[in-house]
């Protein structure tokens, strides 16, 4: 992606509804051909932001630049972008073929050319050719997803937007479709902008992720960065389980956790750091047989055990604080419930975050 020019640039993009600011001062560059995902809890403003980008909602202030041209006032039907809706919004009175060909029919393209294009897209999206004349209401959930995507691709947009299209799909099919979508992204080379409330979904597919909270982008980075180096407690808690301890500044590379009345060895403490949180992922925590096996150590009681399949998760109670420890199945811990156990981690496996 290096060296490629930005396709979409957002400059101080803001949207207010009366007194409520839904999207606040967003600045973002999205690169040509990128798979960019915006993640956030419901009400974080991600849908409003997407609707501004597609042209279905107008921006209160700020600029949306498409390849350098301001497109704020361009209506949705004139923008070279297309969206896959959360409800998919397939036309129920039309067949699979007619749905896919809709934009081509609007452009007055000859029926045989339309049909050829539709069949080609169906082939690309692994939809059987004999579905061409099938009513969309008779398609399964996964097939409907593919029809919606084919319909959007038929428009040949520069940017494809996705508004949580997989949220209503069951787990197994969702995993398949996530991978297919990533394949389609590679095959078409188009820019994909995806929104979801599931960071897990975002990490599987995206080149970069932007985390939204209360109308603002709080962190933008690769899936690795978002998972491995969250800048705030909010981002760290957004994916999977996480151990978070309230700490305040101690020495140059130590922080004090009042809850346990102990100093932890931490990653280097930035200047001006007063208080924040120390974050340790469950897979970075491990059971110890002696205090000195890790830089930081706590003693607690093994409280519960959950089999997650390939991994096993343990709950360890230290005072009233519940820690989560995860191990791969083959390295399962032999301790029994209610045993006193030692858990620990090294400073390099922890992250110091603000707020």
């Amino acid at each position, binding site marked *: 992606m290096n060296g490629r020019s930005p396709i979409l640039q957002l400059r101080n993009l803001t949207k207010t509804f009366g007194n409520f600011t839904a999207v606040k001062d967003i600045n973002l560059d999205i690169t040509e051909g990128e798979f960019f995902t915006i993640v956030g809890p419901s009400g974080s403003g991600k849908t409003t932001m997407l609707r501004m980008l597609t042209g*279905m909602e107008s921006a209160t202030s700020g600029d949306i630049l498409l390849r350098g041209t301001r497109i704020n006032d361009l*209506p949705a*039907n004139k923008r070279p*972008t297309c969206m896959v*809706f959360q409800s998919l919004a397939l*036309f129920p009175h039309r067949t699979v*073929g007619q749905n896919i060909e809709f934009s081509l029919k609007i452009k007055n393209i000859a029926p045989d050319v339309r049909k050829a294009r539709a069949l080609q897209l169906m082939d690309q999206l692994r939809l059987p050719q004999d579905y061409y004349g099938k*009513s969309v209401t008779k398609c399964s959930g996964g097939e409907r997803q593919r029809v919606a995507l084919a*319909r959007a691709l038929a428009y040949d947009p520069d940017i494809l937007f996705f508004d949580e299209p997989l949220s209503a799909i069951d787990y197994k099919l969702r995993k398949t479709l996530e991978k297919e979508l990533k394949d389609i992204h590679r095959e078409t080379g188009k820019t994909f902008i995806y929104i979801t409330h599931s960071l897990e979904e975002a990490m599987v597919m995206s080149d970069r992720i932007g985390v939204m909270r209360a109308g603002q982008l709080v962190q933008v980075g690769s899936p690795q960065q978002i998972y491995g180096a969250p800048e705030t407690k909010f981002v760290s808690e957004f994916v999977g389980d996480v151990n978070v301890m309230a700490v305040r500044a101690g020495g140059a590379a130590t922080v004090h956790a009042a809850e346990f009345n102990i100093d932890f060895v931490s990653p280097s403490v930035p200047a001006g750091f007063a208080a924040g949180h120390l974050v340790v992922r469950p897979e970075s925590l491990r059971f110890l047989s002696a205090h000195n096996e890790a830089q930081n150590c706590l003693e607690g009681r093994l409280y519960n055990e959950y089999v997650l399949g390939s991994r096993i998760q343990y709950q360890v109670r230290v005072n009233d604080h519940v820690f989560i420890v995860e191990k791969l199945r083959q390295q399962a811990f032999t301790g029994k419930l209610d045993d006193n156990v030692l858990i620990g981690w090294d400073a390099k496996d922890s992250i110091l975050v603000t707020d």
Partner: protein
Amino acid sequence: MDGLTPRWRTSLIWSWTAAMVVFMYLPGLCLLLASMTSSRYFIFPINKWGFAWWEKTFASLEIHQLFRTSLLIAFCVTVIAVTIALFGALAFARYDWKGRSIYQKIVLLPIFFPQSVLGLSLLLWFNALGLTMSWQTAVFAHLVWIVPVCTLVISIQVYSFDPALEEAAFDLGATKWQVFKEVTLPVLFPGIFSGALFAFLLSWGNFPLSLYTTGADTTIPEFLYAKMVAGYTPGVPVLGTVSTVGAATLLLCGYAIILLVRRRRAASEHSET
């Protein structure tokens, strides 16, 4: 004893159902029977069967004129009511706007007016405005009552309409008009069709509003009433039967059209695969 209970239950259900059917359709049947007499008066049991009054009725120019007036009014009411009600229903159920809840109540209110009172008050208004009563004023009077009903019928369809469909079409490059023509209208068609049937049938059978507002023009229900009050002939049940059967036929035709459209869609699906 135990074995009898379900049998009893079944027979009770059946006799109740049969009683309801007889109760609902016996008057219609009597109407038909009353029309098939050759005598001048309404006498049961019928002593002289015959279709003389059917011939007379169909030959009558006056009756032809009645049909023309009733059809004309019902046709105009249907077209205007459906047009107003479609957009009314979109405002009613599709868009969220300030004052919508008041609008919903105001629109539905005329359904609850007693029609005879509504007819009278409309007559007073028409007079005050210096209008001459004719089939045109009757169309207006019918609309006052039928547009709300029609709006309600179409609204039911609009409530199940996903607004994202319109956005998707717009997003795919369609103009506002294309969105309406290609998506909104066809998706709402079943509701519009039932609305049109309702409008036609309610206008066709309406008596109280027509009574006050048709002036010199006469509709079939008005004529039937007048003849029953004074000057009964077996032509009355003939006309009543024809009018009822006509309405029923229209309903069945509507149903048949919907079935046909569905089958044709299914067939085209088949041929394209």
